[in-house]
């Protein structure tokens, strides 16, 4: 029989202080019975010898000091996992949302997980073809990588994430593959778009969805990505599946974290976000990866919206410091009607070098990538110059680069929402556009490849 406390002394935001407690452990799970009989859950944030600070997951509306009954469950937050997870939809706290039965758990896993031993990590080096040229060609994704999409309000990040989930595959291999989808604070319509897309394409059969909508309790969002990643770890490292985890939208997650931190009256870091935001985000993002001698892998694709399109805002900034690159979307390209509006220059994939090249994609991939970057950068410079001085004032070479930039955006970047380009198509298209530039200008490409591909 669990001890029940009737000693709640204060409630402030999502935080509840319980007095006269004994034997309460840090991070322990808590059940609180409201006066109207409903039961909500929370966890211990701070435990002293005679009182405990509890953070409620589902808000404190309707809770009172006098009649609340608090029980400490003696365990930390866990997720019951089994192969039946696949194909199901849960809410942000891990309860079924699809009217299906509860999961009969094969085992329970602590949702905070343990850090992967760096010594046990296998370096990600299998190229994933997403069918999107700006990603495959310029910022290749590899298995076990964490590559966020930096978006902003009004940009089609949802479509891009769905397209990647639909098209992603490893070249020449048939292996069991799953998508884990964690939604934090997105609207019903966005969530509905994903669910419909997953259903229409049959992707739902191999997906697990954890959905916390904008009108669900904000504090619940703090567990949602952890539940999703715990499910992913089980599928990847117990069931040998290759798991793609999409977390959307990390900005709302961070805001919930700030809410709890503010309620605790902690000293804030930048823009009111807690000083441990980096560490907290790292415990989420770093759960992606591959492990030596294990078949499965976790590839993580978090999506976040940059407040006011600002890359230096703490959320994108700290994310960029943890993840292995970033795909940045550009409002300018979006206005021009280009989909996907991937801004190639500031985007980056850090793990590309070991994932591309001979036997993986194509021998010339790395050189083509570097050269396209350099040319596009020069083209954009020329465009800026043309705005100031007029196009007529450009030198002949600059005019070529300007034309290159326009063609690059129109042909290479732009593609249809259902267009699935193979990596060979992407690279060939790269060469086609590079032919606009004279051969001696292409300094980033090795001579042998110039001879082989340039004059084709």
């Amino acid at each position, binding site marked *: 029989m669990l001890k029940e406390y009737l000693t709640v002394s204060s409630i402030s935001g999502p935080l509840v202080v319980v007095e006269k407690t004994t034997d*309460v452990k*840090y991070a322990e799970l808590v059940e609180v019975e409201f006066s109207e009989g409903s039961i909500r859950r929370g966890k211990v944030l701070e*435990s002293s010898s005679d009182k405990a600070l509890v953070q409620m997951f589902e808000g404190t509306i309707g809770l009172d000091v006098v009649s609340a009954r608090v029980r400490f469950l003696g365990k930390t937050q866990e997720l019951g996992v089994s192969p039946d997870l696949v194909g199901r939809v849960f809410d942000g706290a891990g309860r079924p949302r699809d009217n299906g039965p509860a999961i009969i758990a094969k085992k329970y896993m602590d949702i905070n997980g343990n850090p992967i*031993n760096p010594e*046990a990590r296998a*370096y990600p080096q299998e190229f994933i073809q997403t069918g999107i040229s700006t990603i495959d060609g310029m910022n290749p994704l590899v298995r076990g990588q964490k590559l966020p999409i930096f978006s902003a309000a009004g940009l089609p990040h949802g479509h891009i994430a769905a397209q990647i989930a639909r098209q992603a595959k490893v070249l020449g291999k048939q292996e069991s593959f799953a998508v884990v989808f964690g939604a934090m604070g997105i609207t019903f319509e966005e969530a509905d778009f994903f669910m419909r897309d997953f259903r229409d394409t049959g992707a739902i059969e191999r997906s697990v969805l954890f959905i916390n909508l904008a009108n669900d309790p904000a504090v619940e969002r703090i567990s949602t990505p952890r539940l999703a990643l715990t499910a992913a770890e089980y599928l990847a490292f117990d069931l040998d599946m290759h798991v793609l985890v999409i977390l959307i939208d990390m900005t709302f997650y961070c805001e919930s974290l700030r809410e709890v931190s503010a309620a605790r009256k902690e000293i804030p*870091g930048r823009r009111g976000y807690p000083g441990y935001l980096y560490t907290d985000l790292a415990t989420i993002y*770093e759960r992606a990866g591959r492990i*030596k001698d294990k078949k499965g892998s976790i590839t993580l694709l978090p999506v976040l919206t940059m407040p006011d399109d600002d890359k230096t805002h703490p959320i994108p*900034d700290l994310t960029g410091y943890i993840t292995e690159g970033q795909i940045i979307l550009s409002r300018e390209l979006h206005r021009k009607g280009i989909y996907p509006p991937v801004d190639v220059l500031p985007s980056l994939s850090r793990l590309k070098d070991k994932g591309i090249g001979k036997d993986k994609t194509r021998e010339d991939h790395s050189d083509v990538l570097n050269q396209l970057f350099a040319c596009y950068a020069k083209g954009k410079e020329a465009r800026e110059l043309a705005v100031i001085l007029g196009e007529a004032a450009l030198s002949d070479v600059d005019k070529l680069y300007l034309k290159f930039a326009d063609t690059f955006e129109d042909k290479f970047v732009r593609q249809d929402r259902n267009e699935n380009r193979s990596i060979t198509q992407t690279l060939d298209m790269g060469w086609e556009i590079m032919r606009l530039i004279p051969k001696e200008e292409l300094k980033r490409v090795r001579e042998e490849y110039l001879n082989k591909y340039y004059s084709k």
Partner: protein
Amino acid sequence: MKKEAKIIKVSGPLVIASGCAGSKMYDIVRVSEKKLIGEIIELKNDLAYIQVYEETAGIGPGEPIYLTNEPLTVELGPGLISSIYDGIQRPLNVIRQASGDFIPRGVDISALDYNKRWHFKPIAREGQDVVSGDILGVVQETPLLEHKIMVAPNIKGKLVEIREGDFSVRDTVAKVKTESGIKEINLIQRWPVRRPRPAKEKFAPLEPLTTGQRVIDTFFPIAKGGTACIPGPFGSGKTVVLHEFAKWSDAQIVVYVGCGERGNEIADLLLSFPELKDPRSGRPLLERTVVIANTSNMPVAAREASIYTGITIAEYFRDMGYSVALMADSTSRWAEALREISGRLEEMPGEEGYPAYLSSRLAEFYERAGKVVCLGNNNRSGALSIMGAVSPPGGDLSDPVVQATLRVVKVFWGLDDKLANARHFPAINWLLSYSLYHDNLEEFLGKNIHDDFTRLRKEAMRLLEEESQLLEIARLVGIESLTFFDRLILEAAKSIREDFLHQNAFHEVDTYTSLAKQYRMLKIILEFYDLSREKLKEGADFDKIAKLPIREKISRLKYISEDKLVEFDTIENELRRSYA
């Protein structure tokens, strides 16, 4: 009766315990039955504030605290090299063998392998008087490294016994008769990480620490025993640059501290280092490397300790008389760990929530670098150089960690977003960066490379600076309105940028350039400028000069491998003939 030490409060990594009277600051304690490792960071009467190096979920008030009455120490001895440790020197490979792919809590594993036997060869003789730092004998730890067994600091006396043979690190190999009795000496030294290891004397560093990176060795060099920092926004290539240092710098020992950074980067290091060969000895680079890996998802308090663990190991090798380089990636994460703990202690914050003692802690850390005369009678010298990455939020250099770092380091390699976006790597901005070692190193470079080296560097730097001004003018009035002499400067500066400064870390030849090759490359590029300028004066056509076919060859100079430097002669001759 002595009161038992007990937990009274748990808040994340901070645990408060009562009944700890008599404990000292920075003593190590074991927390709860799980034996989590913690360190005392504040004392109030019999209360101790403990930062715990492991996750504290499931720990609660009332549980016991075990006092060890010892500060956080590292074990120093044969077996360090090629190891990979977490922030408090627990070997990660042994943890993996013992407990699987994920790191559990409360693991207690010794840092050195106590069973492995090493061959100890004495150098000192029985009957000899020895003092701290004297070398008793050596262990050939790897083909690259002779591990010197030294008399620990604070021991002085007559060597009464010394034996040759195969020993494990805990076996006694020598006995010293001191004033306080006979001291047995084995192969291990223990040293508290927060206290710098002593040396006889420090002096100014006069030799360059070459890194094989052209922009650094030529333009912004660091000295052996010097300090440098490399701040930059994410994606500007900090880690790649630090990895390049770890690979190619001509230090004898490299200590790489991955402090709160990505797990996959450590995996990359561990994957590539056994395969990469040291350009001087041809042996795998791992044979001279120690890795400390406390990735961002590992406990934050251990991250704070990892920097000290790393530097103490580095100092130990410096004491043997080696040149050691320590790379810390990233000191910002270390500072954040400091901030997090400080916040939990409810200390009054300084700038941006960082504790007020941030800059003094940083200064203490960087001051542990230096060129020194080691303890011991033979007056050998050792050097410890520190290169620290800094990750300022949004790349903003006014960040308190950057500012505090710049006050103590001598070299600043400023990474630039714009260069990185244009895929100009290493993205070190030549107008922003500086090195205060130029004067120290001038004599060495003149003697060992060429008298002309310093002049060439200054000339190249002048061209780059003029370029930035000319480009500004060109942006306003158009490039056509510049004189041909100015346009030649632009061409030459472009060549310096693209053909010299730009360096591809992933190209098999380009990744490393010796000083000799750097000199020859720069010489040809500047000779092109000088000759062209002469010809322009004589009335030659500018466009013809700008399009000389030799320039194509100049742009490929970087791909000439180190064993074929004679090719430079051919190209030099060709260049001179080009104007005929």
